[in-house]
C-alpha cells in the first residue's frame, strides 16, 4: 500500500453529503447539503468546497442512497418478469406470513411487477440441475416481443431452480437479445445462486426496477467527476462493505442497496484492528435511527437474508444479495417521546427529522425529542450545536417535556432523564440483539460509536453492556465516509449445494468452490485487477441434519485443494460455533447448505497516521457546566474542546467533550483516554 495516495470518499446521507479525504496521513473533512432532486449536484458541491486538489485524487469511493431511494419512493422503471410456467405468482404469494399477527386486515406488500406483465414460459429444471422440460424458445420470443410492444425497458428473468443450473436463464438472455436488443436484462442466478424462488425472483425484479436510474446516475456522476478533474479510479460502495467499479455497479445496482451505512461498520472494524481490538460492536446513532453490527476478529458479518421495508407489522421485500448484517431501530436524536393509551412512556420510532426538528431547534417542533432531553440535562451545549452554527432553545425544550412531567408527577428534569433512560434501554436491546442473542459476550468486545448522536449515548450503553471499552473515533459525524476510505474491492458469492457434509464430499465441494473462484477471477479481470492481488476466503453454511438454520463456518483448508481432512476440521469448527451460538452441540450428521466465497482485491489505501498534538489538558478545558447524570446526581462538569485535546492524556469523568458535529459524554464513574490517533477511549474507573 502506497503511503502518499490521496483517497477520497463521498457519502450521501439524508441531510448532508459528507466528504472525507486522506493525503499524507492527514484527514480533510467537508460537508454540503444533500440534493435529492439530483444527488450528483451535492457531490459536486462538496468537492468544490473542499481544499483537496481534485487532480491528486487517485481513488474515489462513493456511497449513495440512490438505489434505496428509488425503491422506497417507488421511482424506478416499469419492468417485466419472465418465469417458469406455473410460477408467475411467486411475487404475490410471497412467504404468505402474517408478521402483524393480530391485525385481521393485514395488507400484503404490492409486487413491483403487475401480474399482467409477468410472462410464463415452458421450461423446468429440477433441484439437481437436471433439465426436465427444455426451454421453449418461441415462448421467450413471444414474451420479449410483447414486452417491447408494451414499452417496458427492463426485464427480469427468474426460473425455478436456476441456482442449480443457469443454462435456461442464459439462453433466455440470448433469445431476448435477438428480439429486443435494447432491453436491460437481469438474470436471477447472476445476482444469487441460492435457493428460495421468491427471494431470488424479487431480487432480480428490484435490480431491474432500479437499473435505468442507477445507470443514469452513475453516468452523470462520472461526467461531473471528470469535469471536476477527478480522474483516478472510481468505486462504488456496496452493501457487503466492499467496493466495485462504476461499470460493474451499473449491472447489479441492487448490490448498492445499503451503500451508506456499511461504511460505518467497516470503519469500526478497521479502527478495532488498528487498536488491536478486532472484536468490536459498531454503534451509529443519527437523527432518526441507530444502527449496530457485530464484528468478530475484524470480519464484518455478511448475510444474504436482507428484507427491505420489513418491520414488526410488514413482511417487506427480500433482497438476496450480500449485505452487512446490521440491526437498525428507530432511535435517534430526533426520536419523539410519547405516552401511549395505557400511560406508558415510549421513544420513537417517529422522528422530528431535520424539519421541524427537535423542539429546541425553534423551528416549530413542539414534541419532545431525545435531543431536547439531552439539552435539558445539560449534556448538550445550547451555544455550541453544529459548532455554534445554530443556537438551541432551552425554553422550547422544557415546554416540550412538560406534558410528560405532568403525566408522571415529576419535574421536567426527571422527565428528560426518563426519556433518556427509555431510549437507552431500546438501544441496549438492539446491541444485545447483535451480541448476546447470537451467543456473543459483549464483555469481550469494544464499542465503536459514531453518528451525530452517538457520543452522547455511547458511554452509557457501553457501561450497560459491560464492554471492554467505548471508543469514539475522530470525526464521528463523518465516520461512514471515513470507513469507505479503507475499503477494498470485494465480491461475495454464495451458492446453494444441499448435501451431507463429510470427508467423501471433498471433491464435489472442491469443484464447486473452484468454479466460483473462476467466476470471481473473471469478474476481477474485467476490472483490470491482476490475479496475484486477489485473495479468496472460503466458508460454508452448515447445520445438523434436519435443522433449517445454518451456522457459517470457515473452511480450514491447507493449500489449494479442499481435502477430506479439511472437511473434518471444518466440522469440528462447526460444532464449536453451534455450541457458542446456541448452548449445545449434537452427534448428528452435518449437512451442507451453502458455499460462500469472499474475493477481495486490496487497493492502495492511505495510512492513518498518529495524531501529533501536544499541549496541556487544561488548555482544552474550555468551561464547566452542571450536567444531570440522573441517579448518579448532577455534577459541575468540565467541558473539553476536542479539536485542542492533546493526545495520550487521560481524564476522569464526569466530563463532556465537544466538537462541531458531536458531543461525547463521560460518566462520573468512567475515565477517558485520548489515544495516539486521537480516539476517545472510555472505560470504567
Amino acid at each position, binding site marked *: 500500500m502506497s503511503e502518499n495516495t490521496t483517497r477520497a470518499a463521498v457519502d450521501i446521507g439524508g441531510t448532508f453529503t459528507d466528504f472525507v479525504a486522506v493525503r499524507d496521513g492527514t484527514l480533510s473533512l467537508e460537508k454540503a447539503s444533500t440534493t435529492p432532486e439530483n444527488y450528483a449536484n451535492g457531490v459536486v458541491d462538496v468537492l468544490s468546497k473542499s481544499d483537496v486538489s481534485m487532480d491528486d485524487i487517485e481513488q474515489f469511493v462513493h456511497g449513495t442512497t440512490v438505489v434505496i431511494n428509488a425503491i422506497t419512493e417507488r421511482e424506478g422503471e416499469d419492468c417485466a418478469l419472465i418465469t417458469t410456467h406455473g*410460477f408467475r405468482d411467486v411475487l404475490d404469494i410471497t412467504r404468505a406470513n*402474517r408478521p402483524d*399477527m*393480530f391485525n385481521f386486515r393485514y395488507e400484503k406488500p404490492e409486487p413491483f411487477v403487475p*401480474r399482467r406483465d409477468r410472462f410464463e414460459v415452458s421450461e423446468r429444471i429440477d433441484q439437481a440441475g437436471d433439465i426436465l422440460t427444455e426451454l421453449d424458445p418461441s415462448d421467450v420470443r413471444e414474451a420479449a416481443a410483447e414486452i417491447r410492444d408494451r414499452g417496458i425497458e427492463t426485464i427480469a428473468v427468474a426460473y425455478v431452480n436456476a441456482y442449480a443450473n443457469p443454462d435456461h436463464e442464459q439462453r433466455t438472455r440470448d433469445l431476448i437479445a435477438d428480439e429486443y436488443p435494447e432491453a436491460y436484462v437481469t438474470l436471477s442466478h447472476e445476482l444469487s445462486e441460492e435457493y*428460495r424462488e421468491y427471494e431470488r425472483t424479487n431480487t432480480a425484479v428490484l435490480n431491474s426496477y432500479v437499473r435505468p436510474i442507477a445507470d443514469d446516475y452513475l453516468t452523470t456522476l462520472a461526467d461531473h467527476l471528470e469535469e471536476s478533474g477527478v480522474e483516478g479510479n472510481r468505486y462504488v460502495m456496496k452493501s457487503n462493505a466492499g467496493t466495485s467499479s462504476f461499470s460493474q455497479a451499473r449491472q447489479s445496482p441492487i448490490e448498492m442497496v445499503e451503500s451508506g451505512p456499511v461504511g460505518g461498520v467497516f470503519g469500526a472494524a478497521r479502527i478495532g484492528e488498528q487498536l488491536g481490538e478486532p472484536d468490536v460492536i459498531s454503534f451509529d446513532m443519527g437523527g432518526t435511527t441507530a444502527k449496530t453490527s457485530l464484528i468478530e476478529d475484524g470480519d464484518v458479518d455478511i448475510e444474504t437474508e436482507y428484507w427491505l421495508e420489513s418491520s414488526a407489522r410488514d413482511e417487506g421485500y427480500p433482497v438476496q444479495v450480500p449485505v452487512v448484517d446490521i440491526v437498525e431501530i428507530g432511535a435517534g436524536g430526533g426520536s419523539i417521546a410519547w405516552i401511549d393509551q395505557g400511560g406508558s412512556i415510549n421513544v420513537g420510532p417517529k422522528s422530528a427529522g431535520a424539519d421541524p426538528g427537535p423542539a429546541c431547534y425553534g423551528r416549530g417542533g413542539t414534541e419532545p425529542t431525545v435531543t431536547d432531553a439531552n439539552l435539558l440535562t445539560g449534556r448538550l451545549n445550547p451555544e455550541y450545536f453544529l459548532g455554534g452554527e445554530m443556537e438551541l432553545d432551552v425554553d422550547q425544550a422544557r415546554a416540550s417535556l412538560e406534558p410528560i412531567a405532568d403525566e408522571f408527577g415529576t419535574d421536567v428534569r426527571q422527565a428528560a432523564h426518563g426519556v433518556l433512560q427509555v431510549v437507552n434501554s431500546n438501544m441496549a436491546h438492539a446491541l444485545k440483539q447483535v451480541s448476546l442473542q447470537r451467543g456473543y459476550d459483549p464483555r469481550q468486545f469494544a464499542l465503536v460509536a459514531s453518528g451525530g448522536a452517538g457520543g452522547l449515548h455511547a458511554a452509557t450503553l457501553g457501561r450497560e453492556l459491560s464492554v471492554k471499552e467505548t471508543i469514539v473515533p475522530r470525526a464521528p459525524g463523518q465516520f461512514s465516509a471515513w470507513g469507505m476510505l479503507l475499503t477494498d474491492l470485494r465480491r461475495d458469492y454464495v451458492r446453494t449445494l444441499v448435501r451431507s457434509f463429510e470427508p467423501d464430499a471433498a471433491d464435489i465441494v472442491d469443484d464447486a468452490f473452484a468454479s466460483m473462484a473462476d467466476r470471481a477471477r473473471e469478474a476481477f479481470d474485467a476490472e483490470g485487477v491482476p490475479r496475484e492481488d486477489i485473495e479468496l476466503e472460503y466458508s460454508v453454511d452448515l447445520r445438523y441434519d434436519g435443522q433449517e438454520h445454518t451456522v457459517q463456518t470457515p473452511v480450514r483448508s491447507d493449500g489449494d485443494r479442499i481435502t477430506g481432512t479439511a472437511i473434518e476440521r471444518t466440522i469440528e469448527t462447526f460444532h464449536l460455533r453451534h455450541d457458542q451460538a446456541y448452548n449445545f452441540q449434537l452427534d448428528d450428521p452435518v449437512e451442507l447448505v451453502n458455499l460462500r466465497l469472499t474475493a477481495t482485491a486490496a487497493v492502495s489505501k492511505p495510512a492513518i497516521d498518529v495524531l501529533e498534538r501536544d499541549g496541556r489538558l487544561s488548555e482544552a478545558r474550555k468551561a464547566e457546566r452542571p450536567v444531570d447524570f440522573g441517579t448518579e446526581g448532577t455534577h459541575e462538569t468540565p467541558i473539553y474542546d476536542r479539536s485542542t485535546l492533546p493526545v495520550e492524556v487521560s481524564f476522569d469523568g464526569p466530563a463532556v467533550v465537544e466538537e462541531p458535529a458531536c458531543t461525547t459524554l463521560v460518566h462520573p464513574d468512567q475515565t477517558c483516554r485520548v489515544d495516539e490517533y486521537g480516539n476517545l477511549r472510555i472505560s470504567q474507573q
Partner: protein
Amino acid sequence: MSSATESDIDPFTREVITNALQSAAEESFINLGRTAKSSVIYETLDYACGLIDPDGNVVAQANGVPGFLGTLNFCVEDTIEKYGLDGFFPGDIVLLNDYHGGTHLNDVAMVAPVFVDGEIVMFAASKAHWTDIGGKDPGSWTTDATSVFQEGIQYPMVKLYEEGRLNRAVRDIVEANTRMPEMTLGDMQAQEASMEVAVERVQEIADRYGKETLERAIDDWLEYGRELVLEEIESLPNGTYHAEDYLDDDGITDEPVYVTVEVTITDDSVTFDYTGTDPETEGPINSPYAASVSDARALFQAITLPDAPTNGGFFEPLELIIPEGTVLNATKPAPIGTDWESSAMAADLPWKALASELPEKLSAGHFTSVCATIVGGTDDRTDDEFLVIEPQPGGWGACHDRDGADVLVCSGDGDTLEMPVEVMETRFPLLFDQFALDTPQEAGHGEFRGGTGLVQDYNVYNESGAFITASFGRSEFPPWGVEGGQPGDGNYIEIVKHDGSTERHRKLTNYDLEDGETARLVTSAGGGWGDPLERDPERVLDDYRDDYITAETAEETYGVVLTDDGDLDVEATERRRRQLSTESTE
C-alpha cells in the same frame, strides 16, 4: 396509570424492566426457532415462549402463532397445582403435553421455575409442535382418530430435569415413543436450551433490580395491560351480537357440527358465550378448553389493540363461557388431533358477529382452516424416511375499503413462513407443477373482492410413492361475505391419478400416492365485502387484465362490459348494471 397505582418505582424503571422481560422471552423464542429440527417449529413457527408469574399471569410472551396465547398460563397453573410452589427446585424442567397442556398432543410444553433468594419469582414456559410423538399414524395427529390414546404419548407434567440433572428415564421414554428420534430429541434439546436462556435472563434482571422491584414492576405491568384494554373497550359499540356456523364434519361421519356464539359488549367487559355449540365429536376435531381460549383471545386482541404486547392483565376483561363437553371444550379421552379446526371457530364466530360493526378492525371471512398437510414416505434418493408438515395459506376476506389479501396464512397461524418450492424440492422427493393464485376467481366477489386462494400441485417424484394426510376444513361451508359480498368457495384437495381422473377430498389420512401422481391442494377465496355491482368498473377492468377474473365474470357478476379490444364499455356497463340490479331486487 401511574397515578392510580400505589407504586414507588418510577415509570421509567418499570419500562426498562418490562422491556428486559419482553426481550428475554424473545431471545428464548429466537434461540428455539434457530435450532429446532422440525420445520413446523422453524418455518411454521408453531411455538411460543413466555414468562408467567407464580399467580399464573402472563408477563411476557413471544408468539409465532396466536394459537398459544391462552395456553402457557394454564400449563404453569396446572404444573403448580401438581407440585405446589414448594415442589420445585432450581434447575427443574417439567414436560407436559396432555389435556393439561391444552392443545393437541404434538404441542409439547416445558415449564421451569426461576428462583431469587430461595423463592420462585417467575416461570419460564414454552410450547412447541414436535413432528412425531407416536400414536397410530406418522406425524401423530390424524383426521380419523376416535380417542386421544391413538394420537401419541402423553407426558403428564413429569420432570425432565431435576435440579439441573437430566431424568434419563423420561428422556428414554421420549426417544422410544417417536418414529423420528433424531428429530424429536433435537427439538427437545433446542427447547431445553431456550428455556435455560429465559431462566438466565430473568435471573440477571432479578439480581440487578432486586426481587421486590421486579415484583412491583410486574404488578404495575399487569395493571397497565388492564387499563390499556379497558380504555379501548369503552370505544367498542355496546350490544349483543350473534353468529353461527358449521364445521364440515368430524372426520368419522359426514354430519356437519353446529357452532355458535353470543357476543356481549359493555363499557368494561367483552363476553363470548358459546352455549348452544354441539357436543364433542367422535372424530378428532375437538378442541380442549385452552386451545379455544387462545383463539378467542386472538380475536379479542384483534378488535381491541392488535399491537399490544401479550400481558395477562390485558385479557382480564374478556369473559369466556365455553360449556364443558362441547366441541370447543372437549374432555378426555375425546380425540383432539386436529383441534385447530374447531378452535378456529372460537375466533371466527365472534369475528363474523362483529365484522360489520368493526370495519376498521376486521375483514370479511377468510379460508379459516390451517389446511394442515403431511406428506411422507421413503425418499428413494437416500432411503431415509421423510415427513413434510405444512399449513397452507389461502384467501382472506375483503375489507370495507380494499380487497382481501391473496394467499396468506390463516388467523390461527402468524409469522408463519410458507416453505419455498426450491427448498421443498431439495428436502423431499416432490416436484411442484404449479404454485399459483387460484384464478380466474369464481367466488368472493364484492365491491371489494375477497383475496384468492392458492393452488399448489404436489407431484410425487419418488418411485416408492408417498402418502398424504390432510385436514382441509371450511370446505362445504365457505368463508362468509359482508354487506352483500359473496362467500368464498371452500378449501379442498384434488387427487390427480395417472389416467387424469380426479377425486375431491377434504380430509385424508395415510392416503397412498404413486410416483407421478399429484395431490393438488386448493385453498378458498375469502369472502367479499359489499355489492359487486358497486365495484369501481376500472378495478374490474384491472382484475380482468391481470387475469383475476374472466370477461364473463366481469359482465355477469360485476355488470362490467368490455369492448372487443378489452377496454371498458361505459354505456353498456351502465345498462348491464341497471339490468342486474333490477333482477336482484325482483
